[in-house]
C-alpha cells in the first residue's frame, strides 16, 4: 500500500541500497575492532584491518648468528639462510631500517667508501650504496647523493649483502663479524589471525580479574532491585491509598535526576556508616539508582494486567500478598526480564559509579575502569591489546543483547512511549 505501481521498484532499490549503506557504516567501527583484536601489532601497523584478508608486505629485521663467519682475504664473510628453520619468500632487502626493501632478491647491495670532489674543490670521502645483479660488477656512480663528483677508482668496499628469494644470503664486511649483523628484508606475509592478544591481556594484564570484578558488581546489582521494585510497583498499580499519585510523579521525576548529584553526598554517607568504597557500596548505589526505572517499567506493565483476574482472586479471599506473589509476579515476567536486561547492561557498562564507589586500587578495577584508566595509558600504542581488551568487555553485553533483544525492545517501548 506504500506506493503506486510505477514508482515501487525504483524506490525499493533506493531504499535497499540506503539501508545497506547505513548498516555498513554502522558496522565498520565494530568490525574494525574485532578484526584488529586478532592481529599482531606488526600487522596492525603494517596495513589497515580492511586489508587484513590480503597478503601484506612486511618489513622485518633479522640478525643471523655470527658463528660460522670466515675470512676471505681482507674481508669477512658470513653466509646462510635468513629463514633458518622456516620458510618464506623475500621480496626485497637492505642494510638499513630506513630502506628495508631497497634491493631486489638476486641482487647484491653494497656500501662503498669513495672520494668525492666538493664544489669548493676539496676532496673528501663519503659513502655510496649501490645495488647490482649478483655475478656482475658493481657500477660506481659518477656522482654521490649530494651531486658531488666521485673520484674514479677510489671506491673501497665496506660491506655488501646478497640475498636470494629463498632467503640465502652472503654478508661481506671489512671488519670482523663478531656480533650479529642487522639484515632487513621485506616479505609477503599471508593473512594470519591469532588469539595472542587475548592470551596476553588475560594472562599478564589482570583483565581476568577485572572481568570477575565486573561480574561481581553486575549480578547482585541486577537482582536486588527487582524484588524491591516489584512490590512497590504492585502497590502503585493495584492498591488504593492517599499519596499514590504523588509517589508515581516522584518516581517519574527521579528517572531523570543526574547521577552526578548523588556521588559526593552518598560517598560521604558510605564513609560515615563504614561501608566506604567497597563492593557493598556499589551494590547499594546501583540498587538505588536503578529503582526509578524498575518501578516505572513494572508499574506500567502491571497496570495493564487484566483487572478481572486480580479482582476475582480477591473475591475468592486472596490477600494482596498472595495476589502479588501468585498472580501478578508470574504474569509480569516480560517486564521483569526487560528491566533485568537494562540494569545488567547499564551496570556492566558503567564507568562513573565504579570510579566513585569502588576502591581505586587495581584489585577492584572493573573492566571499564581498567580500560579507561589503565590500558589507554599504559598500553596506549598497543592497538592489538587494546582491541582485545575492549572486545572482552563488550562480548557479554553483545551476547545478552542479541539473545534477549525482544525483551530489551519491549522495555524501551514501555519506558518511553506514552
Amino acid at each position, binding site marked *: *500500500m506504500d506506493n503506486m505501481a510505477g514508482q515501487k521498484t525504483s524506490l525499493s532499490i533506493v*531504499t535497499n541500497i540506503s539501508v545497506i549503506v547505513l548498516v555498513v557504516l*554502522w558496522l565498520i567501527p565494530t568490525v574494525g575492532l574485532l578484526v584488529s583484536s586478532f592481529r599482531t601489532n606488526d600487522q596492525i*601497523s603494517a596495513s589497515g584491518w580492511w586489508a587484513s584478508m590480503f597478503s601484506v608486505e612486511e618489513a622485518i629485521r633479522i640478525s643471523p648468528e655470527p658463528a660460522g663467519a670466515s675470512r676471505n682475504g681482507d674481508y669477512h664473510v658470513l653466509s646462510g639462510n635468513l629463514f633458518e628453520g622456516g620458510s618464506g619468500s623475500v621480496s626485497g632487502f637492505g642494510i638499513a631500517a630506513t630502506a628495508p626493501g631497497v634491493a631486489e632478491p638476486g641482487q647484491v647491495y653494497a656500501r662503498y667508501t669513495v672520494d668525492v670532489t666538493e664544489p669548493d674543490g676539496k676532496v673528501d670521502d663519503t659513502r655510496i650504496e649501490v645495488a647490482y645483479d649478483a655475478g656482475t660488477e658493481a657500477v660506481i656512480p659518477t656522482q654521490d647523493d649530494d651531486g658531488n663528483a666521485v673520484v674514479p677508482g677510489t671506491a673501497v668496499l665496506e660491506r655488501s649483502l646478497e640475498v636470494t628469494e629463498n632467503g640465502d644470503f652472503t654478508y661481506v664486511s671489512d671488519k670482523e663479524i663478531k656480533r650479529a649483523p642487522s639484515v632487513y628484508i621485506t616479505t609477503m606475509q599471508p593473512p594470519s589471525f591469532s588469539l595472542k592478544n587475548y592470551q596476553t591481556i588475560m594472562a599478564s594484564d589482570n583483565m581476568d580479574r577485572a572481568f570477575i570484578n565486573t561480574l561481581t558488581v553486575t549480578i547482585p546489582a541486577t537482582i536486588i532491585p527487582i524484588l*524491591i521494585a516489584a512490590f512497590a510497583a504492585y502497590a502503585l498499580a493495584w492498591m488504593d*491509598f492517599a499519596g499514590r499519585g504523588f509517589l508515581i510523579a516522584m518516581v517519574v521525576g527521579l528517572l531523570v535526576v543526574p547521577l552526578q*548529584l548523588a556521588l*559526593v553526598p552518598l560517598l560521604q554517607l558510605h564513609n560515615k556508616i563504614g561501608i566506604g568504597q567497597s563492593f557493598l557500596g556499589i551494590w547499594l548505589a546501583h540498587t538505588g539508582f536503578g529503582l526509578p526505572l524498575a518501578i516505572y517499567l513494572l508499574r506500567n506493565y502491571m497496570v495493564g494486567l487484566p483487572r478481572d483476574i486480580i479482582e476475582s482472586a480477591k473475591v475468592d479471599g486472596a490477600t494482596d500478598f498472595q495476589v502479588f506473589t501468585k498472580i501478578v509476579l508470574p504474569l509480569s515476567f516480560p517486564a521483569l526480564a526487560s528491566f533485568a536486561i537494562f540494569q545488567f547492561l547499564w551496570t556492566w557498562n558503567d564507568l562513573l559509579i565504579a570510579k566513585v564507589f569502588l576502591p581505586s586500587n587495581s584489585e577492584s578495577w572493573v573492566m571499564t575502569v581498567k*580500560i*579507561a584508566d589503565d590500558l589507554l595509558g599504559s598500553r596506549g600504542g598497543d592497538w592489538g591489546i587494546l582491541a582485545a581488551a575492549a572486545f572482552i568487555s563488550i562480548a557479554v553485553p553483545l551476547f545478552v543483547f542479541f539473545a534477549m533483544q525482544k525483551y530489551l525492545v519491549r522495555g524501551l517501548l514501555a519506558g518511553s512511549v506514552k
Partner: protein
Amino acid sequence: MSPVLQGFITIIVGVGGCVAYFYASNLILDKVIFPARHDDHGRNINRATMVRPWLFLFPAVFALGLYLVYPVVGSFVRSLYNRAGDEFIGFGNYSQMFSEEGFRTALLNNILWALVVPAGATFLGLLVAQLTDKLRWGNFAKSLIFMPMAISFVGASLIWKFVYANDPDIGIINALRDTMGMGPVDPMQIPFWNNFFLMVILIWIQTGFAMVILSAALRGIPEETIEAAIIDGANPFQIFFKIKVPQIMGTIVVVWTTITILVLKVFDIVYAMTGGNFDTEILPSYMMDYMFRDDGRATAVAFVIMIIVLPVMVWNIRQARKEMR
C-alpha cells in the same frame, strides 16, 4: 572475604531479606496488629488495608529517598561550602566557576552536545525506522544498527579510537584521506570540530534507541490516514513528512528529550577519548576533574547539570499526571 563470595552472600541476604521482610510484615499486620477477629473485625481489615500499601512501598521509598532525593538536597548544601567543607561561602563556588574559562568552555560544549546529539540521533533513527519499515530484511538491519546500544561508552570510545587513529594504516578516516593524497590528521586535535567528532560516537550509540521507538510509533500510525493520502495522490515524501511525522510528533519529542537527558550524564566518551584536552570538556567530565579533589566545586557543577535537567523533569511529571487521569 573474596568479593565473589561476598557478592553471593549479598544476593542471598538481599533477596532473602526482601522476601522475609514482605512476608513477615504482612503476617504481623494481619495476625498481630490488626487481627481480623472479635468485634472490630471489619474495622481492623480496613485499617490493615490502609497500612499495607506502605509495607509494600517502604523499602523502595526508603532507597529512593536515601539514594536520589537526599543527594539532591545534600549536593546543593555541600555546593555552598568551600573545598574542605568547613566554611559556608554561599554561592562562592558558582561565581568562581562561572568566572573561569574552563567551566564556560565546558558549558558551551555541553550546550552544543545537547543540541547536536539528540538532533542527529533522532533524525538518523527516524530515517532508519522509515527505510526499514517495509523491508524484508528490515528487522535484521535494525538489530545491527541497534547493536551499539549494548556497548559501553568506554568500549565505544575505544572502537572509535581505531576509526580516528592518526596512522593511515590503522584509522580508516586517515586511510581515506591518504588515498585522496591528503596528509594524516588527528581528528581529536582539530579545534572546535573535535567536539563534533566526539558527538558522532554518542550519535552512533543512540541512533538505535531512537530507531526502535520511532519504528514502533510508525507502525502504530492508522493505515487509513496513509491510504487516504495515497488515493489523494501524495508521493512517498509527502506521505512521510505531511502524514507520518506529524502523527508521531509526540514520540519524537519523547525520544529527543530522553537523549538530551542522557547527553547531560555521559562523561565516559570525553574522558576516554581526550581526557577533556583540546577544549573538548563537557560538564560531566569537568565535574569528574574535581571529584575527590574539591567536593564543593564538584557538587556545584552537578547542581548546574540538575538545573539544566529540571525543565525536562517537570515536563515529564506533568505528562505522567495527565496520563493517569
